């Protein structure tokens, strides 16, 4: 019992220590309005944790990046958050996947992941 408690304390101590040392994720804000994302191009570093904070300014929007398995619906007034760590350098196009009007099909953006 005592040994397990000691191990548990040690483990949780190590965990807290690791947490303290982990870099805080980078916050990247992307806003969506008819029919564009701002910014439409985002550059991220491979291996760097990131949280996308997505907001819709007018109507409900969607954010879809199938290659990185990222998807969120974005109701106006209710920001969506997507946490991930990009691994492979490259260019990844995202698009709005909630039909929002005449320019919906051109509503895209790019995430560039650099080494």
């Amino acid at each position, binding site marked *: 019992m005592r040994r397990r408690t000691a191990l548990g304390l040690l483990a949780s101590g190590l965990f807290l220590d690791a947490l303290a040392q982990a870099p805080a994720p980078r916050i990247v804000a992307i806003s969506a309005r008819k029919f564009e994302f701002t910014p439409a191009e985002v550059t991220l570093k491979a291996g760097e944790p990131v949280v996308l904070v997505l907001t819709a300014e007018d109507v*409900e929007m*969607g954010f*879809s990046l*199938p*290659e990185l398995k990222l998807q969120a*619906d974005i109701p106006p007034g209710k920001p969506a958050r997507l946490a991930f760590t990009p691994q492979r350098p490259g260019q990844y*196009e995202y*698009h709005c*996947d*909630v*039909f*929002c*009007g*005449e320019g*919906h*099909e051109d509503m*895209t953006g790019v995430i560039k992941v650099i080494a």
Partner: protein
Amino acid sequence: MHGLNRRTFLKIAGFGGVVFASGLARGAGGYAAAADEFFFVQLSDTHWGFQGAPNPEATKTLPMAVAAVNALDPQPDFIVFTGDLTHTTDDPAERRKRLGEFKSIVSKLNVKTVRFMPGEHDASLDRGEAYREFFGPTHYTFDHKGVHFIALDNVSDPAAKIGDEQLAWLEADLKKQPAEARIVVLTHRPLFPLYPQWDWATRDGERAIELLMPHRNVTVFYGHIHQENHFKTGHIEHHSAKSLIFPLPAAGSVPKRAPIAWDPAQPYRGLGFRQVEAETQPVEYKLTEFPVVKA
């Protein structure tokens, strides 16, 4: 009988395209023997109201397609439009104007049994409200000569979902069908994730496919991608139709999903409609692609 007459006509007119045989025969002979052969015509993605360089003849294309269908001899048993009847507009009054004009043009089809369904351009901005005013329910079933047809709506929800309620309706309907029933699903978007990067998918389409899977003879006809595509999920075949406004490139073949440019030397290239011949011995669907204008 139909097939022979029509093929003779095609040979004389030089009007037909590629014939695609979609085989389904998997022990359904007994059931199929009770059914009659027939054919229907599928038109899709007419986008009435579209204006732009990809089709400078946009106001002529739909009337020409109507004339081409009326020239078929013999005439099909019925005609289906698998969505995007109109091009989207943010103006509800203009949406209704386009739906009304479309309805008026297709009323000139000689065959009066015409089944409609919406695309996202018709229905996603008002959850199908204007569409229903002109064409009624967005999902429904009908039976024809031994084939059970199911029209599925994967566009009235702007997030491209069929939704729990409609899936429950589909499940209840399929429970009434024997496993060997011949089932044809008509819808707008692909039910399988053909290319989600270009929004060529239905978010919960795989749930519909799961429900259909126990049935041995299921074929899906859809539109949305403005080109032919033939794909199988298990034993279920999925066939997309050409558009009647502009063709789109093959999935992922170019960086951007953009219409293929109009070629003045070959106007209407890549546009067309298809007829679907439902045969019983063996159980299969023969697809014949037609251009808008004679070659």
